């Protein structure tokens, strides 16, 4: 559940979600659930020439299982917090 908790902290921030079909969508993280399904708002497609039809999409729901990467805002990465969290998770706590 580490990623779930972590992504919940990123709600409201700008992220880029890269799908396994190479589509990359940038937007404000609206919500995330335990399956890492992701809802984005104010989205825009990073590679608009390749995926012109996605231009119109303002909010979208992305299935967790099709996500390849989530690019995080640098200010949303708290190294200390992540260290602690991963250690706690590693102990099975």
């Amino acid at each position, binding site marked *: 559940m580490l990623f779930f908790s972590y992504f919940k902290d990123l709600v409201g921030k700008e992220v880029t979600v890269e799908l396994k079909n190479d589509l990359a969508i940038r937007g404000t993280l609206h919500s995330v659930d335990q399956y890492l399904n992701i809802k984005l708002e104010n989205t825009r497609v990073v590679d608009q020439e390749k995926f*012109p039809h996605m231009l*119109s999409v303002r*909010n979208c*729901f992305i*299935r*967790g299982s099709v996500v390849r990467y989530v690019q995080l805002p640098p200010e949303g990465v708290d190294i200390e917090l992540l260290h602690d969290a991963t250690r706690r998770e*590693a102990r099975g706590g």
Partner: protein
Amino acid sequence: MVAGLRYFTDRSDDGAAGAPLLDTVNGEELMHVQPAVSIVLSNHPPESPGTLYISTKQVIWLSDTERTKGYAVDFLSVSLHAVSRDPEAFTSPCIYTQIDTGDEDDESENSDSESNETFDLSKITEMRLVPSDPNQLDALFEVFCECAELNPEPVEEDEPEEHNWIFSADQLGPAMGIIDGVDQEWDSSQTHFTTIGHPNGDHDLARNVLELQINDQRFEDAEEMESNNRNGGQQ
């Protein structure tokens, strides 16, 4: 389960356009019905009129006029759904979905088949659902979200916790399972290593005994001479 879009013809017999027959035995429930929805598969022309049925497992679109015409896709195959309102991308506001066909190279094949009259549903990677009343889009979007969350990946979603690397320690032995902190873990692995070192010493000893038993002529002689006594003593 079939990945991607498929034909759907299982309808109830009541009325001209019967409702879809769902897998109620396995808990499938109808969540939402939206009349007057046309469907657009990839770049094919819109098909209408039809009715959209959203169940806990799948999205079904059935033609109102042709009983044999209908499409369905499992939520497991719906990679993404969104509300599309920009007229430049599509003439009417719609629910836009991307469909995972389970095929890696579907992109190019898909564009090839788009000009054909008949098309291969398994190649369809995009589906638009256009309600005649655009005010329904947000509600539809929410129903899609709700149902998508009801359909996590069957295998992997519950497992990541099990797959945490710390759990592999459990398989090393019961001693590792009750470790609470890092220091104890180190202690215990050191003890573990000493016990590994121990058998190494014993091993030579065991080998020597074995050689003695097998190769030493004196043992064979002794066995032959006083076989009854020795055998009785060993067993």
